[in-house]
């Protein structure tokens, strides 16, 4: 099912949860709505599903406006953040619910319902739990019941609100992979909401980055990560060092940090703020730009802080562990810094100070 969101706005009291948002989703796509809390991503999902109503704008499913239709008529599958399972019903009856409430004319027979529910429970790998009460299940099992229940009405689009948010890290990873496979098998248009950039990047065909009720950027994970169009997206997608710089004729000068000679900054001139990812910085012994302070080894790469001598705070550097060891860098050592690639934004676009502080709006 294709989805068209046109100029949708939603205001709660004086708070604009969505501000003129437009989005189009192709049939069979897997879309992530990514953003910090309060960015309007859940509101957008609920409006598409029909659980909330826009103050302005239009929603079309398969090219037909559904703005006048309630949630029960839109036929979408929805998985709630806390699953919202029916506590008084068994696993089986939870999944069967959407079939049992159909009008008599379209309601499947009891045997058919049984067949379909058991097939779905097998699909989500919990058919052995069919007779349990849902209150006896673990978080991961509940998630699967919620998914099976949403799929039971054979929706053309599946929506998930923070589907992995309430699970512990290991179950989360497992379910994520499994959901990706499921999507590939069933080919259903899927939209999910998340605040976890890693989750969005790993799962989605396209990522919609949202901030303060607006869509900041839409693109494939590669586009979003490689070419963030503004400081917000840049910061939300991972750790970043912000340093003041000046650009003249495409050549950037960053006080305290050397710039790869062949690197050119396009479409910018004058004073700006350089956004440098930790892994795009490299430390070299024998120079005196800053002092190595804190080390945090993490497998194949190592992260450390370098305090700049010029008083612009400290920057975070991430290097290949092998290279790091070959250079024999140690805490307290003076090093030089070189930036391989970065992006420069106008200072007026940047909130907060541009003084070397490592920002981590999203979790690393």
């Amino acid at each position, binding site marked *: 099912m294709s989805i068209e969101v046109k100029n949708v706005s939603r205001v709660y009291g004086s708070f604009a949860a969505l501000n003129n948002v437009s989005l189009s989703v192709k049939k069979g796509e897997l879309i992530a709505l990514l953003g910090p809390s309060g960015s309007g991503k859940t509101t957008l999902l609920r409006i598409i599903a*029909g659980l909330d109503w826009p103050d302005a704008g239009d929603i079309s499913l398969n090219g037909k406006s559904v703005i006048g239709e309630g*949630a029960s008529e*839109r036929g979408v599958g929805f998985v*709630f953040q806390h699953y919202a*399972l029916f506590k008084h019903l068994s696993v089986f009856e939870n999944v069967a619910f959407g079939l049992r409430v159909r009008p008599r004319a379209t309601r499947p027979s009891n045997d058919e319902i049984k067949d379909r529910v058991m097939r779905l429970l097998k699909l989500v790998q919990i058919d052995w739990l069919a007779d349990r009460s849902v209150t006896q299940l673990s*978080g991961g099992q509940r998630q699967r019941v919620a998914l099976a229940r949403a799929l039971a009405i054979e929706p053309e689009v599946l929506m998930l609100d923070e589907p992995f948010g309430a699970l512990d890290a290991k179950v989360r990873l497992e379910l994520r992979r499994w959901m990706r496979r499921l999507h590939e098998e069933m080919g259903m248009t899927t939209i999910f909401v998340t605040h976890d950039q890693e989750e969005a990047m790993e799962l989605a065909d396209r990522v919609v980055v949202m901030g303060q009720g607006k869509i900041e950027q839409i693109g494939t994970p590669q586009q979003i990560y490689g070419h963030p169009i503004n400081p917000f997206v840049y910061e939300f997608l991972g750790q970043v060092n912000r340093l003041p710089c000046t650009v003249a004729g495409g050549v950037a000068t960053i006080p305290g940090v050397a710039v790869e000679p062949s690197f050119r900054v396009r479409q910018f001139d004058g004073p700006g703020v350089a956004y440098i990812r930790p892994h795009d910085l490299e430390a070299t012994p024998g120079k005196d730009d800053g002092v190595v302070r804190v080390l945090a080894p993490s497998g194949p790469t190592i992260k450390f802080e370098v305090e700049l001598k010029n008083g612009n705070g400290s920057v975070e550097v991430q290097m290949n562990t092998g290279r790091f060891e070959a250079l024999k860098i140690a805490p307290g050592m003076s090093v030089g810094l070189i930036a391989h690639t970065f992006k420069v934004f106008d200072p007026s676009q940047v909130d907060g100070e541009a003084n070397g502080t490592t920002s981590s709006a999203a979790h690393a």
Partner: protein
Amino acid sequence: MPAEFDSFTSGNVETRRRRLLTEPPVVRTTLLTLGIGFLVLFIGLPLVTVFTEALRKGWDAYLSALHEPAAFAAIELTLTVAAISVPLNMVFGVIAAWCITKFEFRGKSFLITLIDLPFSVSPVISGLVFVLMFGLQGWFGHWLSDNNIKIIFATPGIVLATIFVTFPFVARELIPLMQQQGTEEEEAAVILGANGWQTFWRVTLPNIKWALLYGVLLCNARAMGEFGAVSVVSGHIRGKTNTMPLHTEILYNEYNFVAAFAVASLLALLALVTLVAKSILEWKLKQAHALHAKSIANAES
């Protein structure tokens, strides 16, 4: 050293802890005696008195007092009034709680206060309000008497007063529970294609059934036992507009103690049955609450 250490860790620990956490025996005994004594004096004794007074002249006198036509009429009227007002208040209460907890609208807190009004107003005033509205000198009095409709000093007035007085019980019981449960399950039902009625019947009602029964039980106890409001609107017509509490008072004022206490004993029995049912429901309710808490905790683990 080892000996001292032993005395520290052995069986004494339990005793020591108990000594640290509770009051000395003297204080405990005094408090317990006071508490139990108070209960016996103010609640136990009156209850026993009701039954001993009722049976003072033996079972035959007791039974014949209840077989008397006026007593019979009072029992019948009380049951009729409860049979009308309790189901109505159950429906009103569920609707009110549903509106308040599942929707956002202006004037919501005003509505909640309004629901509580019958609790904060003296029952006599509640009765008077209906006399002022439907009595002969009241707003609708002329129209009613012209059309030959009797409300005050008749069963409809008693039913109205009872509905008014017992309105809050069901809603008050349901609102906190429904607020705690939120609207997510209802949303899930709707998105799975359920209509409003199916959502209520298959999702909301099963979640609130114990609280609803609890409210209905309290509502019923009050409906049968209400005195003040009913007294004002009834007119005390023997065999016609006397409910059991009113009938008891009349008999008592006529020094017909055995009969008065016989009717009162029925009301006391009703109270006892209510108490037992209430305890069972409270236990069930606690389970429902625990279930909800557990399901939240599990979902987040």
